[in-house]
């Protein structure tokens, strides 16, 4: 088994562009669930709207990068409002079912062939990142980073992705420590008490949904920009569940939690996957083939999610008193 390669791959996941994308989505979910107590199981929809919004604005409208980013953010904010108005009055478990249903319905709409001139149907969209990569100040070439090596494009998307993570984390830190953030936590702990103090609980929830959704849609953009392909099947329920696992791993009501949770999660995933692939090629796991190792990856996601919720719901960084599932 090639240990050096395995460690390389694992280290690559720590700073990968996909990791940054998931971390952004998890930060958004931390806003929804960790700080406001909303059981949002439709986070994939916000990311998908960011990605599709960007791609459609670029390809169909011919807008530049800034316009496309703004359009993606606008789409997800609009979705947050449209979804929030009817559903935020519902009990937490109803909210979970409705958000997951809305996300699936949206994905069906993206995948249908009826609008494939705009959405690309089941094949999705591709090659919409030219303007983004035009901003790349790094000259062409291969850049070694420790044992890893990146092209100028790979480096650029990683720099942008992780800068966005840093900015989002900072914004969330300031927001959650502001009076506004304290009201959110108040709503999470006891909605009626917050209402009794004269706070407009509904407005706060909508604001939280919009802000968290916008951060997630940035994540969606980073996700599709690294390969310049955006396919509807990416935004299935598994995407949402991965984000939940990352969030609960790090700690739901923390800022650092989603960041470290995401890095840990993907590094662990890559580590176990590489080791299992190594064992399979060495013939030590005769009942598995290489393709099945990728499937075990998702099995582990489910297992980690279960075990976390049962044994350590506050995650790595969380404070147990701060985690309320409201039920």
């Amino acid at each position: 088994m090639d240990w050096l390669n395995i460690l390389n791959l694992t280290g690559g996941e720590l700073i990968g562009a996909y990791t940054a994308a998931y971390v952004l989505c998890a930060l958004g979910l931390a806003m929804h669930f960790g700080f406001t107590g909303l059981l949002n199981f439709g986070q994939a929809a916000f990311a998908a709207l960011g990605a599709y919004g960007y791609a459609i604005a670029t390809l169909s409208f011919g807008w530049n990068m800034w316009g496309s980013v703004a359009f993606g953010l606008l789409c997800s904010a609009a979705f947050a409002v449209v979804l929030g108005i009817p559903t935020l009055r519902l009990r937490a478990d109803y909210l979970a079912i409705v958000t997951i249903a809305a996300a699936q319905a949206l994905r069906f709409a993206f995948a249908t062939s009826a609008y494939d001139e705009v959405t690309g149907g089941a094949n999705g969209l591709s090659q919409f990142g030219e303007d983004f990569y035009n901003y790349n100040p790094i000259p062409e070439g291969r850049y070694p980073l420790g044992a890893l090596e990146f092209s100028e494009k790979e480096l650029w998307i990683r720099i942008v992705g992780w800068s966005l993570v840093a900015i989002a984390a900072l914004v969330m830190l300031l927001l959650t420590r502001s009076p506004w953030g304290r009201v959110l936590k108040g709503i999470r702990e006891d909605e009626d008490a917050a209402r009794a103090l004269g706070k407009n609980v509904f407005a706060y929830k909508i604001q939280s949904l919009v802000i968290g959704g916008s951060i997630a849609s940035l994540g969606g953009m980073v996700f599709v920009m690294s390969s310049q392909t955006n396919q509807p099947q990416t935004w299935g329920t598994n995407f949402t569940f991965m984000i939940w696992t990352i969030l609960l791993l790090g700690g739901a009501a923390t800022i650092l939690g989603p960041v470290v949770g995401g890095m840990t999660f993907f590094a662990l995933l890559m580590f176990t996957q590489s080791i299992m692939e190594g064992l399979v090629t060495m013939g030590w796991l005769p009942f598995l083939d290489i393709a099945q190792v990728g499937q075990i990856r998702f099995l582990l996601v489910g297992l980690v999610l279960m075990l976390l919720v049962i044994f350590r719901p506050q995650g790595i960084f969380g404070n147990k008193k701060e985690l309320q599932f409201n039920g």
Partner: protein
Amino acid sequence: MSQLNIRMGRKAGVFLGLVAMLFSLLFAGAPAHAADDPSTYPYSIAGTILNDDKEVPDVKITATLDDFTTSVVTNEWGEWEIRVPKQGIYKVELDVTTLPAGVTMTDKGGEVSEADLTQTDFAAVLFSLGKSTVQAQSFSDQLLVRVWSGLNFGLLLAIAAIGISLIFGTTGLNNFAHGEMVTLGALFMWVFYQGLGQNIIVSALGAVAVVAAFGWAQDAGLWKPLRKRRMGLNQMMIVSIGFSIVARYVLLLVFGGDTKDIGGGGNIVQLGPIYTSDIALVSLVICVIILAGVALFLTRTRIGKATRAVSDNPSLAAATGIDVERIVRIVWIVASALTGLAGVLYGLQFQANWLTGFDILLLLFAAVTLGGLGTALGATVGALIIGMVVEVSSMFIPNELKYAAALVVLIVILIVRPQGVLGKKQRIG
């Protein structure tokens, strides 16, 4: 003989054409520097004009892009090919005045088409002539067919939805791993019926027994300990999501990702305008009998009454001497058996793979929520509505969106009447 030779020659020609296409695909991107000789243009649009399976020669076809226009006439086999110099979306028009007398386009405006040469260097354009071969079904007949499918699908959903509803009613758990029990039922039906070659009834009973055992084990091994720890319901819901992922991927590892044909389609039965299969008919009857049985069980038997008491108020039920844990255990077994049966019937009618249950899980939740969480009758009504919405909506919207339609209905109902159609008024906000 000469006819045969020509045929073979044409085949060879097609083959050569394909080879040429492959080559040109491989070297696509090589600049088109040919002079203005149309026969050397790199891109081509082609087709064959057929009327009632007979070739139509001497029809004029014109391709246009911006200021570029060129025309050809079909040869004696009705074939035509236009070579064009650059990529783009060409407008291709058939000159209807050149068609033989009595031959018309199938659809009005069907003489104008387009060829998309933006991605490839070859595009085929088909024009359809003569009468439409698709027999038009009257709207009422179509509706009848759809309503029938909706009834059939709705009843299937109802059996599984009652399972969710019973479990939610007695334990308060929104079990996201319920879909996997549908899958398990269908796949074990496949194992017993197709794999082991058992009789269909024995196979069905075997599959239902497997799922019931799985339900019992799930409750004893996972949910009972969690209830003992007094875990919050929302936390348990997230555990069930994790459990469903694990179960789904275990099923994938064990059964593989291919779709299994379990029932083989059955024999076709005609009821007026509706063509259906004997499997579907039998399944419908079984569903109705089972639903009636569940209703009798819940209203007439001691255990059924105790189940409803636990649903109403577990503490009060315990105070009157009902063993709540025993009822919950029975409910898990009964609910799993029902869900497994739904999986068996679904698999027999529609085939199944590892994702089958997960695909309909949200429809089940929609059904249960629509009818009012926690009531068995509500789940049945909700499931029938969802089944109808799914099938009837596909008359008006693209087929891929029919599940989305059901989910939109769910969202709308929750806005208008959050407690569901038959649900008790309670605080859910």
